């Protein structure tokens, strides 16, 4: 009898540990720091978006050290989503492989996992940029894209994929990583290798504070987005009471902090501010929101989870206006959210080329539809810009392109005309005057552009209105 009890207690302890590990597990990156390549400042929180439930009991109760365990290239992975296979058109540009030197651009992000809706479009845009450059016929080298599929965008698995790119000497630049946690986990590695990485979508403000000379960011940060969101809610929407929920990822928690601060500083009221790891059962948090009767429910997280939360909130009779940031503005929110998310408002530092009135983005939007038979999704314009920066760097050095020549070219970039904005770097490698947040609304199952947040809220918090 006693043994039995002991046994049950032991098993219960294992279960307890498993859940505790899930909630607490920190994923320190295992990088040996070299001069100038600092590890991320806050290692304790260094784990980004990850399915709470994706770790099985066995994994969770094992040692929590972050081990590079999965390395999947898209060509080898089963295509799970309805999105077109990146492998189908993978990289190889045109027919003129012959005698030209091959120079590769890496791409790192979630191409087939739950958050692929935030990444696939960027990848296809990078492909399009390479294809267009190739079609011009004057490329001095053969540019190929080498995509590394980091399923679900986990920070734990990103370093292994980064190492694969670093290990290939023909890779001279990396587009991405797509998410903040991935960027944080790989920044020091790319830095040591002297390999330039420009992210088209990682928006955690702290990323550029690590002092990595190789890391650049092609869009505004969560601090900018969050700051303008508060002003927009209070001044443009005239709403007071906001419930803010985040998914406890590097991205979600950072954005939520910025949103909460700006709502308060603009005179609004944050009635609820909580984090919840991605799950299926949002009952408890939904009840909390309903009890507070907010005017707005804001979710800082990713589009894999947002529709579940929003649907369960609507099912329970919640009527607040639904809002979210760029992480929520993927295709899955529209698909899985259905009528529950109609009228929802999303902010994004990204330009939707389909909704733009400028000729260059419009042309890109048409080219994209012609190439893939579907409209360009989130971060497509930014990824196209990043790819073209790299292509310009490669053109300028021709067959002598090295990692160093690319880094020098990108670092000294002057007035580079992109679709989303004109690029000049600040000393920390943010875009000069790039603090733009666009506001979108879901109407009839589609994102429509309402305008720039700063303009909509009377320009009060606008510091710059740069080119489109």
């Amino acid at each position, binding site marked *: 009898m006693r043994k*039995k009890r002991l046994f049950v207690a032991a098993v219960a302890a294992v279960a307890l540990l498993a*859940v505790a590990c899930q909630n607490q597990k920190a994923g320190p990156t295992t990088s040996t720091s070299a001069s100038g390549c600092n590890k991320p400042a806050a290692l304790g929180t260094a784990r980004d978006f990850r399915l709470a439930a994706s770790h099985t009991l066995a994994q969770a109760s094992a040692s929590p050290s972050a081990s590079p365990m999965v390395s999947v290239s898209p060509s080898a992975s089963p295509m799970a989503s309805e999105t077109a296979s990146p492998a189908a058109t993978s990289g190889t540009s045109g027919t003129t492989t012959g005698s030209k030197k091959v120079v590769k651009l890496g791409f790192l992000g979630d191409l087939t996992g739950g958050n692929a809706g935030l990444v696939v479009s960027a990848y296809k845009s990078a492909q399009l940029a390479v294809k267009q450059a190739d079609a011009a016929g004057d490329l001095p080298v053969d540019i190929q894209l080498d995509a590394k599929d980091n399923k*679900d965008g986990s920070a734990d698995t990103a370093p292994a994929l980064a190492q694969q790119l670093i290990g290939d000497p023909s890779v001279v630049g990396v587009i991405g990583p797509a998410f903040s946690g991935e960027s944080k986990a790989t920044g020091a590695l790319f830095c040591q290798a002297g390999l330039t990485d420009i992210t088209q979508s990682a928006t955690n403000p702290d990323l550029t504070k690590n002092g990595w000379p190789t890391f650049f960011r092609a869009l505004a940060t969560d601090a900018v987005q969050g700051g303008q969101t508060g002003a927009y809610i209070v001044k443009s929407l005239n709403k007071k009471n906001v419930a803010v929920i985040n998914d406890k990822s590097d991205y979600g928690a950072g954005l939520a902090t910025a949103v909460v601060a700006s709502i308060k500083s603009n005179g609004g009221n944050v009635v609820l501010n909580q984090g*919840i790891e991605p*799950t299926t*059962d949002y009952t408890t948090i939904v009840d909390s929101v309903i009890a507070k009767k907010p005017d707005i429910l804001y979710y800082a997280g990713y589009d894999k989870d947002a529709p579940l939360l929003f649907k369960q909130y609507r099912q329970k009779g919640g009527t607040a206006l639904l809002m979210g940031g760029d992480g929520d503005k993927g295709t899955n929110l529209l698909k*899985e959210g259905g009528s529950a998310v109609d009228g929802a408002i999303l902010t994004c530092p990204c330009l939707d080329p389909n909704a733009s009135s400028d000729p260059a983005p419009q042309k890109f939007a048409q080219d994209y539809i012609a190439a893939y038979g579907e409209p360009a999704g989130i971060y497509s314009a930014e990824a196209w810009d990043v790819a073209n920066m790299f292509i310009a760097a490669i053109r300028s050095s021709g067959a002598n392109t090295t990692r160093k020549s690319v880094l020098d070219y990108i670092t000294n970039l002057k007035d580079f005309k992109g679709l989303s904005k004109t690029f000049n770097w600040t000393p920390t490698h943010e875009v000069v005057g790039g603090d733009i947040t666009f506001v979108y609304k879901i109407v009839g199952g589609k994102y429509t552009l309402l305008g720039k947040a700063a303009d909509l809220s009377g320009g009060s918090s606008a510091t710059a209105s740069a080119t489109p």
Partner: protein
Amino acid sequence: MPSCLTSELPFRIVGGLSSGGVYALIAIGYTLVYGVLQLINFAHSEVFMSGILAGALFLGAFPPHTLGPLLLVTAVIPAMLTSGILAVSIERVAYRPLRKRGAPRLAYLISAIGMSLFLQYTTQVWRGVNPEEFPATIKPTAWLHVGGVSVFNTDVIIIVTSLAMVFALETFIRRTKTGRALRAVAQDAEAAALMGVNIDRIIMVTFFIGGLLAGVAGVLFGMNFGRTQWNIGFIPGIKAFTAAVLGGIGSIRGALVGGLVLGLMENVSAGCFGTQWRDVVAFVLLVGVLMLRPTGIFGEKTV
């Protein structure tokens, strides 16, 4: 008094009973198997997952406009059968060979975890990593308004179904011949065998019943949250196991009470301390109960 114990409390109770009902149905699978074999069947969370998946595939085969409450009730049948058969197969493949060789307890535990991983990743390869929709059959509508609290039809369905299933199971075990044999095996397997009870058959029945209830739980879960995925069983499985231990593992009523108490505690504590603290409070409660009553609320008794 904080609002979580006054104005919010009715909400929390309804939400807690609804979560707890599903935990209870899964917990019965753990508790029955433990009662008969003194074995924790960790692969039970995948039995639950197979029920959700079977329900989703069944409903997905119908055109959307035909979906309704009647079809939901029908979907319970394939879900129950799938889960029941899977549970029996798990017993055949993962436990019976060990039992025949008189393996130590630890071997069963490893075998269970291995089975659980095998089933999860097989499903992942088969269905992919992305979540799939569990087709909506019932439009959630508020049935009751009591003192400003809306009680939704989905909550009522979950709570009533769980209670009914537990009652039916109790009756089955108390009143039928197979039930008596089951109790006999639980009390003393050797003596039962000497009295002519076919132990292998009874063990199969035990797993099958656990699977049937997990199938029902799966459909209820799918109805409530509208999604299925390869690893969706993990968290509810852990919670249900906790509920079984809390109520007193081996006891059916214990599983019910444990599930409901756990659901309530999670929801009420989420209101009082924030959702972040939900699991902390739930497990502190578990540890607390085990310290005072090591055998759980109802005491460890065998079926």
